[in-house]
C-alpha cells in the first residue's frame, strides 16, 4: 500500500488545506492525474499523483488543514504488495557554520558597592598580573585615566632608580606605605625588593608577595624606632560602663550596618584628647613639630601576617558615627590590600587596638617620626572600686608610649586623664 502524502511545493510551504477531493475511493489513478485541490499561501493548487493504482482510502476530509508530509490517501498499487514508504526524509541537517549569532551585549554596570572598577589597558593588566603588581595603587596616565603599560612598568621600579623623561609621567606611589617617607635612614632597595641578576639586558624583577613586602617594611620601621626613640610607658585602667551603656542605647536606634563599635569611640576619644594635649599630636624631626591636623592611624592586622596602618584624616572633626563608617569601609579594604596610598599617609599619631585578641594590654612601638602610640587592650569584666564600693565593671586598659625626647611622663599622664574623662562622658564626643 502506498501512502499519498501532502506534497511540498516550496521550501517555505508548511501546510496545506484540502479544499476538494477530485478522486474517491476505488478510483483508478495513473501518474499525472489530479487527485485534489489544496489551498496554500500562494493560492489554490491542483496536486497530482505520481503513483498508479486504485485508491483504497481517503484519509483526510475536505476542509482539513494538514502539515506537509501528512498521509492524505492510501493507494493500492497494481498488484498486492503492501509497502509503506515514508518518502519525505528530513533533509535539513543541522549545519554548524561559523557562529553568526552575536551574544547579547552585557553591559557592565558599576557595582553599587564600594569596589571601584579600575581602568587598565589589556597589556598593562597582563603585565600587572604576571608581576603581581597591585593596580589599585597606580594612577593611570592613559585615556580617561587608564593604567597603561608604562604606568605598570614604572610602578615595578623603585622611585629614583630610573628616570623616564621622554613621557613626563606623574610620580607613582608605592605598593605599601607603612610610614611617611624620610631620607637618610631610608631602607635601600634590596630590602624591599629582590632583583634577580640576569645575564640578559632585559630587566627581570620578581616582586615580593604582598605579605613578604609588608613583613619587611614592618621590620625596618620597628628596628628604626627601637634604635632611635627613647620610649616611656604609662597605663590607665578606664571604666567603660558608661561608654558601653551609651553605645547600647545609641545602637538601638541604628540599623545593623551602622552600629557603633568601641573602636570608633576610642578613636574619637583619642582625637578629642589630642585637642587638649596637643604636644602628642606632633612629629620629632630635629625638634618637636606640632601638627595642626589630627590624623589618626590605627593598626590593622593582616591574616597573611603583618600589619597595615590606615589613617582617618581629621578625626577630631568627625562624629563617632562617621568614624564608624570609615572603619567599615577601610578595614575590609585594608585586609585585602586595596587601599589608596592617600589612605596610608600623613598620620600624626597611631592607635593600636588589640581588641579581639586575648591580651589585656598592649605596649606599642612608636612609628617614627611620630611621638606617641596609644594602645587599647580588651574590654573585660573586672573588679572595680569606686567610692569605697566594689563592683564588677567592663574596663579597658589603655597604654601610652611616648617619645621622651619630645614629651615627659606628665604630658602623657594628662593625656590619659583627658581620655578617661571623655570615655566617662561618651555623649559629649
Amino acid at each position: 500500500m502506498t501512502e499519498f502524502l501532502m506534497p511540498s511545493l516550496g521550501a517555505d510551504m508548511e501546510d496545506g488545506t484540502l479544499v476538494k477531493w477530485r478522486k474517491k475511493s476505488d478510483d483508478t489513478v495513473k501518474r499525472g492525474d489530479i487527485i485534489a485541490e489544496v489551498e496554500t499561501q500562494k493560492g489554490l493548487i491542483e496536486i497530482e499523483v505520481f503513483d498508479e493504482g486504485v485508491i483504497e482510502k481517503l484519509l483526510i476530509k475536505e476542509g482539513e488543514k494538514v502539515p506537509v508530509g501528512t498521509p492524505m490517501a492510501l493507494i493500492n498499487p497494481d498488484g498486492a504488495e503492501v509497502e509503506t514508504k515514508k518518502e519525505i526524509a528530513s533533509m535539513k541537517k543541522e549545519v554548524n557554520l561559523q557562529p553568526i549569532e552575536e551574544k547579547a551585549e552585557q553591559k557592565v554596570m558599576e557595582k553599587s558597592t564600594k569596589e571601584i572598577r579600575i581602568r587598565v589597558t589589556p597589556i598593562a593588566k597582563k603585565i600587572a598580573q604576571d608581576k603581581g603588581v597591585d593596580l589599585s595603587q597606580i594612577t593611570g596616565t592613559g585615556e580617561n585615566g587608564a593604567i597603561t603599560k608604562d604606568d605598570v612598568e614604572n610602578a615595578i621600579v623603585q622611585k629614583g632608580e630610573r628616570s623616564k623623561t621622554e613621557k613626563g609621567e606623574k610620580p607613582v606611589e608605592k605598593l605599601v606605605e607603612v610610614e611617611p617617607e624620610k631620607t637618610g635612614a631610608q631602607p635601600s632597595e634590596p630590602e624591599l625588593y629582590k632583583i634577580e641578576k640576569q645575564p640578559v639586558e632585559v630587566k627581570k624583577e620578581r616582586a615580593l608577595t604582598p605579605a613578604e613586602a609588608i613583613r619587611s617594611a614592618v621590620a625596618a620601621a620597628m628596628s628604626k624606632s627601637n634604635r632611635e626613640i627613647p620610649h616611656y610607658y604609662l597605663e590607665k585602667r578606664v571604666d567603660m560602663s558608661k561608654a558601653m551603656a551609651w553605645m547600647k542605647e545609641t545602637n538601638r536606634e541604628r540599623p545593623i550596618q551602622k552600629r557603633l563599635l568601641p573602636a570608633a569611640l576610642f578613636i574619637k576619644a583619642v582625637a578629642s584628647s589630642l585637642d587638649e594635649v596637643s604636644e602628642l599630636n606632633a612629629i620629632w624631626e630635629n625638634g618637636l613639630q606640632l601638627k595642626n591636623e589630627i590624623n589618626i592611624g590605627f593598626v590593622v592586622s593582616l591574616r597573611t601576617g603583618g600589619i597595615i596602618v590606615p589613617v582617618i584624616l581629621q578625626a577630631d572633626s568627625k562624629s563617632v558615627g562617621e568614624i564608624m563608617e570609615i572603619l567599615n569601609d577601610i578595614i575590609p579594604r585594608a585586609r585585602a590590600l586595596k587601599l589608596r596610598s592617600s589612605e596610608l599617609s600623613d598620620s600624626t599619631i597611631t592607635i593600636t587596638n588589640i581588641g579581639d585578641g586575648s591580651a589585656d594590654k598592649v605596649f606599642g612601638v612608636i612609628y617614627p617620626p611620630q611621638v606617641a602610640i596609644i594602645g587599647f587592650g580588651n574590654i573585660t569584666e573586672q573588679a572595680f572600686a569606686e567610692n569605697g564600693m566594689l563592683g564588677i565593671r567592663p574596663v579597658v586598659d589603655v597604654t601610652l608610649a611616648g617619645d621622651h625626647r619630645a614629651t615627659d611622663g606628665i604630658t602623657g599622664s594628662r593625656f590619659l586623664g583627658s581620655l578617661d574623662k571623655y570615655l566617662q562622658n561618651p555623649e559629649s564626643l
Partner: protein
Amino acid sequence: MNKTKILMPKTKSKKIDLDAKKAHHLFYQMLLIRKFEDKAAEEYTKAKIRGFLHLYIGEEAVAVGVIQALTDEDNILCTYREHGHALARGMDAGAIMAEMYGKQEGCSRGRGGSMHLFDKSKNFFGGNAIVAGHLPMSVGMALASKKQKKNNITCCFFGEGAAAEGEFHEAMNLAALWKVPVLFVCENNLYAMGTAIRYTHSMQELEKKGAGYGVESSAVNGMNLMAVIDAANEAVQKVRDNGKPYLLVCNTYRFRAHSMFDAELYRDKKEVEEWKKRDPIPEFQEFLLKQKIITEKEIKKIENQVDSEIQKAVDFAEAGTWEPIDQLTEFVYSKKETK
C-alpha cells in the same frame, strides 16, 4: 480571465532532410526532457529537491531544435529553466539529478542546484539565475572567439522577460557594434513569471526589437520541432558565415507553472488546455509516424529507454553523497597560488 492573443508568424514551408537516426534521437531527446522534468516535479514534492524548480515542460522543441544545430565547440548560456538545454546538450541525467539533490556527484558538485547546472567539458555555461545577467557574458564569449579567430559561436537562451532588462539592450547593442558571433534565442512563453507579455512589453513582436540595433531577427513557432530546426539551422549558419549576431524568437508555452510553488492565478486553465493540444512531442511523434520514419515499436523502445535512464538518474542521485561541511569555503578562490 483575459485571453492572451497569440501572435504566430507563418512557418517556412521548406522540406527538411532528416534521416531516421537523427529523427529518433531528437524524439528521444524531447521525451527524455519531458519525463525528466516530470520526475523532477515528483522528487520536489517529496522534498528531495529544494529551493526553486523551474520546469521546461511544453518547451522541449526549442532546446532540442536549436541545440541540434550547434557543434561541440559552440558555447551555450541559459537561464534557470535550463534542465532541458542541459539534457539536449548531452549532459548526463544522473549528474543533473544529483545536482538538484545537492549531492557532490552533481555536475556543479552540488553547489549550484537546479538553477546552476554547469559543464565546462560541454561548453555549457549555466544555469544563470539573474534574469538577463548572462547576456553580456555571451557577447564577451563571442568577442573572445572573434579575437582568437576561433570558428565557434555562442548561443544565448533567455525568456521574453529578460528582453525588458537593460542588460538585454546593452548586449544587443554591443554584439551588433562589435560584430560578434552570438545567437540570441528568445524563448517567448508569454509569461514573465506571473505577468503576461502585454503588461511588460510595449512592442510584443519581440523579433522587431532586433532592428533597433541592426541585428537580424526572425520568429518561429516554438511548438513545432521541424519549424524550430529549420529556423535554427538558418540562423546558426548566418551567424557562422557573417560573424554577426542574430535574434531568433521562439514562440512557445510552458504547460506548468513558473515554478513549483505557483498557483497560476494569472492565467486561464482553458488557455493552458488549448496550448496542450499543440504539445510538441505528440505532434512530432505524429509527424514521424506519418512519414514512416518511426514505428510504434520503436517509439515504445525509446520510451522504455528513457524510463530506465531516468530511473538510473534518480538512483544515482539517491546514492550520492553530501559534500563534507569542512569543505565549505572551497571554490571561493582558485587553488592555484596567487603571487
